[in-house]
């Protein structure tokens, strides 16, 4: 029983991170119908920048809280700049091109960013300096660390903020209008280029936060980490219904739980034949099932064109 609760806790933590990244995929898809496969690399860059700042300041004597905040600020600024540039340089010239062109470009951007990160930070794994409090709390026989609590709370707060932004503000209305019908939105005076840029910037800021969370949670960062994380978050977005904000949150958390519980019990289920390092198969099993049985996702609407 305590293993079950432990895996639920781990799943929620993992799921919160997936959800933050999935929001970036789903927002961009909602606005311009594009899967931004380079989004995972933005998360990686966020992790790398944050880690660099933390390493620099680890022995500076500043309070841990301040160090983390500075790292987060640096990561957010860099990621927002990267996200903005990706759209301007790689996607905007292809705005009216066939759908396949920006998709291939996205994969290209992803490879470029990975190699750039390898040049800057090297091929090695970077360990997260042990500056975070390691205190653990006991919950029904399972343990949850302060870091895990912080990850879940901050992610929840950011998602709530995003939902308020999208549903309650003028900017959010303009984003939804652009997503529903860009040319009519233009007639209303919406500068859709600006809205698309803002969408990339917001998604990248969420990615920066997620990057810091992942590297803190696993105590490690690596130039290649964005690839798998990006695929998982993309799976989460598809599971929830790509283009749907609430769907990305739901899909992220569900995927985190599925993976975590799967990893916890796969050994028992297969009589020890497969171990918990097979955790990744669950995400892709889910992706395949969703694509076969419910391509519109859990809360996504059926895509239909009205005459």
């Amino acid at each position, binding site marked *: 029983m305590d293993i079950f609760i432990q895996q639920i806790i781990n799943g929620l933590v993992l799921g919160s991170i997936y959800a933050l990244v999935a929001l970036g995929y789903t927002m961009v898809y909602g606005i311009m119908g594009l899967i931004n496969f380079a989004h995972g690399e933005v998360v990686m860059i966020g992790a790398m920048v944050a880690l660099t700042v933390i390493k620099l300041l680890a022995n500076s004597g500043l309070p841990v809280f301040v160090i983390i905040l500075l790292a987060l600020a640096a990561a957010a600024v860099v990621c927002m700049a990267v996200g903005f540039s990706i759209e301007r340089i790689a996607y905007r010239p292809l705005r009216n091109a066939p759908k396949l062109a920006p998709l291939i470009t996205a994969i290209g951007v992803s490879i470029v960013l990975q190699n750039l990160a390898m040049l800057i930070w090297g091929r090695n794994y970077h360990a997260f300096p042990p500056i975070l409090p390691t205190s653990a709390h006991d919950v029904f026989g399972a343990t949850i660390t302060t870091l895990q609590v912080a990850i879940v709370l901050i992610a929840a707060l950011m998602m709530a903020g995003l939902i308020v932004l999208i549903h309650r503000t003028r900017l959010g209305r303009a984003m939804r209008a652009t997503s529903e019908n860009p040319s009519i*939105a233009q*007639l209303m*005076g919406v500068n859709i280029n600006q809205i698309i840029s803002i969408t990339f910037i917001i998604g990248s800021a969420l990615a920066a936060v997620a990057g810091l969370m992942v590297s803190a949670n696993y105590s490690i960062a690596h130039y290649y980490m964005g690839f798998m994380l990006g695929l998982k978050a993309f799976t989460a977005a598809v599971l929830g219904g790509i283009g749907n904000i609430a769907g990305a949150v739901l899909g992220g958390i569900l995927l985190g739980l599925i993976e975590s519980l799967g990893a916890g019990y796969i050994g028992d289920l297969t009589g020890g034949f497969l171990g918990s390092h097979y955790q990744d198969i669950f995400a892709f099993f889910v992706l395949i099932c969703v694509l076969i049985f419910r391509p519109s996702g859990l809360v996504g609407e059926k895509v239909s064109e009205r005459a």
Partner: protein
Amino acid sequence: MLEVTGLRVAYGGIQAVRGITFHVRQGEMVALIGANGAGKTSTLKALSRLLNAAGGSIRYCGKEISALPAHQLICEGIALVPEGRGVFPRMSIVENLLMGAYTRHDKEGISTDREHVFSLFPRLKERAQQLAGTLSGGEQQMLAIGRALMSRPKLLLLDEPSMGLAPLMTQRIFEVIRTVANEGMTVLLVEQNAKLALEVSQRGYVMESGEITLTDEAANLLANPRVREAYLGE
């Protein structure tokens, strides 16, 4: 107020509008009528900058606007009610109206205008929080007109407001268009329903195969045997 000279619109190699010249004076309602495919909607799309003109000039209040980005047009005071209504289906009526006032920042003015729209279309007020996609075609047309009015335009471009509507609904929409025009709005009305359009307008232009073939006072056009035969089904 609006002066269009030699306007041409082309899709690829096909010319939809072949150098038309017309004008709309301040406070006037002008009808642009013609059969399906005559180039009426292309003309409006060029005016509202959703399409690039292939040639000619569009002057509005003395200013050339044919190279302006589409999103700046509303700041100049031009609002389009597009063909097929173009409401945002997953936004509520109130949110659609707020989108109409997107470029405005005077909160009080916006809520005054919203009440004005609600007084023109009481039906919209009853359903204020309903999603626009769940409305009937006529209600969506009301919403599209109301949304355009929310920008406090000086020139209102209407594209086929009667399209796909039941006769009774069409009548009500046209009553409101007349009311708005009587309040002093300058209107350019594009319509297939020539009779309705000419009855509410002061002047009219007849468009055929991308060219303007006839122009006169609306009353004269209504009496013109050629128009009667071609567009009024007599």
